[in-house]
């Protein structure tokens, strides 16, 4: 007699049960199905209907995947529920940390005059647009009220190096406070590098400060996008980059690009420039509808469709480079892939639900105003104070964090109860973005059917899934991207 039961003993005669999932159409007759934690499968339309009718045969190739990814279970199985609960809890665990990113706008002064700039810059000798020590101290009181064990302080402007004394002040004061607080404290300066000096670099080295800079592409494109006196933005950037890497290390300087109408036909050249300068990735960003970008109508110069062409061409080129042995990633895709292929949430503010405004990132402006996000203060610079949460000099932490302005925006934009979003299969990957939708629709929820944010992201989600499903080597590369960020 065999020690083992026959195969029949393991065969279930009972029908499976459906677990919660959502579905959406991809190209043609194919559908994507996603569960509560963002795991996905692509299924053909007839299979979806059979699945929903609970008539899918156990020997069907899809059956094992559906069970493994918790789309179905047998009624007596508890493990799928426990695993889904655990993964859901992991994805949302960032919420218990609360605010991590604290942005200090130390000055509005800037030596550049970029037409798409999202901030209304001021002349570089106008010190009334500088943060004062009193404001900085109050802002630090606020920072250390956050329960988050990891605190990031990012200096923005204008050009923060034009008020470097305030950067120095905040870093030293924060580190003194941290002797007792013992948080994981990190500093970032967002700078064009045009005013970088040896003294600044020595200070950055001493305090382990990261530099986040801007690179829009080859010399002519970068200088056209970023005019300054002397028309030497790129030359200063390149010289500053070499100097900064030499002192701080290659991995301590990152770069962001902005896509203008001039960038659209040149995505390969832009990527080549990033590769040439030794960056390991690029963030292909669309222009945001805030600040000067709206005032100068730069935001209107290209539409979402054209930007998506630019994005997809860039992504295809990066995959070509990867397959030729050059390690390089597109950072926005990496963030999304982390949501699609792992149980972790990368904590990217634009793709958070509840929205990251205020509860993942918060901004202290040079004048003491507190804003729910960087975009909120950009709107404010254009006269729209909707997301001004209070003033650091006069309002308490509780006044600001529990303000109706913030809580209403978070609640009203919550995607799991928003029209269209609540039924959308891509909801686990997407974000609420109340500030963007307010900027466009004057409503934090917005009409998603008409939203370029929705159109852009839906298209990218579908594109990434399409690429993975059509090519196993791309899927393997994307797995690496997802686990790299």
């Amino acid at each position, binding site marked *: 007699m065999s020690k083992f039961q026959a195969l029949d003993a393991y065969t279930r005669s009972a029908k499976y049960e459906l677990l919660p999932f959502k579905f*959406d159409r991809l190209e043609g007759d194919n559908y994507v199905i996603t569960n509560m934690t963002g795991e996905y499968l692509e299924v053909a339309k007839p299979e979806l209907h059979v699945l929903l009718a609970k008539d899918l045969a156990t020997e069907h190739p899809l059956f094992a995947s559906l069970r493994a990814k918790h789309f179905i279970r047998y009624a007596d199985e508890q493990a799928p529920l426990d695993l889904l609960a655990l993964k*859901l809890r992991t994805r949302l665990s960032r919420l218990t940390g609360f605010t991590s990113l604290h942005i200090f706008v130390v000055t509005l002064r800037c030596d550049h005059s970029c037409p798409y700039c999202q901030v209304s810059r001021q002349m570089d000798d106008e010190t009334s647009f500088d943060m004062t020590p009193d404001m900085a101290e109050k802002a630090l009181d606020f920072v250390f009220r956050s329960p988050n064990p990891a605190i990031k302080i990012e200096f923005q402007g204008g050009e923060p190096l034009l008020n470097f004394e305030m950067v120095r002040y905040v870093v030293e004061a924060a580190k003194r406070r941290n002797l007792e607080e013992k948080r994981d404290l990190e500093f970032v300066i967002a700078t064009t590098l045009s005013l970088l000096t040896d003294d600044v670099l020595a200070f950055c080295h001493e305090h382990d400060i990261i530099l986040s800079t801007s690179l829009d592409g080859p010399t002519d494109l970068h200088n056209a996008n970023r005019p300054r006196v002397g028309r030497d933005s790129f030359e200063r950037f390149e010289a500053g980059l070499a100097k900064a890497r030499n002192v701080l290390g290659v991995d301590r300087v990152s770069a962001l690009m902005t896509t203008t109408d001039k960038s659209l036909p040149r995505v390969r050249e832009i990527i080549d420039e990033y590769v040439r300068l030794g960056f390991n990735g690029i963030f292909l960003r669309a222009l945001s509808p805030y600040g000067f970008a709206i005032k100068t109508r730069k935001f209107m110069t290209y539409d979402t469709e054209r930007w998506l062409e630019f994005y997809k061409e860039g992504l295809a080129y990066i995959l070509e480079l990867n397959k030729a042995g050059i390690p390089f990633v597109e950072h926005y895709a990496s963030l999304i892939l982390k949501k699609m292929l792992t149980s972790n949430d990368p904590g990217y503010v634009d793709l958070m639900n509840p929205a990251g405004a205020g509860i993942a990132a918060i901004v202290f402006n040079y004048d003491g105003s507190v804003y729910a996000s960087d975009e909120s203060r950009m709107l404010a610079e254009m006269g729209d104070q909707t997301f001004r949460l209070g003033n650091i000099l006069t309002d308490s932490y509780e006044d600001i964090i529990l303000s109706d302005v913030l809580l209403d925006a978070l609640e009203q934009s919550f995607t799991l109860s928003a029209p269209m979003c609540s039924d959308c299969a891509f909801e686990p990957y997407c974000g609420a973005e109340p500030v963007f939708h307010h900027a466009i629709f004057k409503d934090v929820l917005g009409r998603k059917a008409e939203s370029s944010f929705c159109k852009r992201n839906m298209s990218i989600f579908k594109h990434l899934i399409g690429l993975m499903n059509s090519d196993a080597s791309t899927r393997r590369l994307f797995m690496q991207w997802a686990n790299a960020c």
Partner: protein
Amino acid sequence: MAGLAELTFDGQLYGAEAIQKAAYRAMHAFTLDLKVDGDNILCTLVGNITTEQEAFERAVEEFRKDVLDYQLRAQLQAETAPIRNLIIGLAFSNARLNQSE
């Protein structure tokens, strides 16, 4: 001239909510007038001024698919709601949200 289309759905098979959700998704192309007539749900789709005829016809086709999708979504959601609530309960039952650290 704006596009115009009239569709009829069997009220025994489709809920008005599924039709409304599909119309919401298509609002970039057209608006919907909805009327219940006995067992039938009558839909009049009026193209937006900015919607070209060809785009309108494509949007109507998408709408018909979306109505079926939303109907199936409603059935799936109703069937899985208790399990969904159970999973959320399991996920957060030990969150100690009401206790200080």
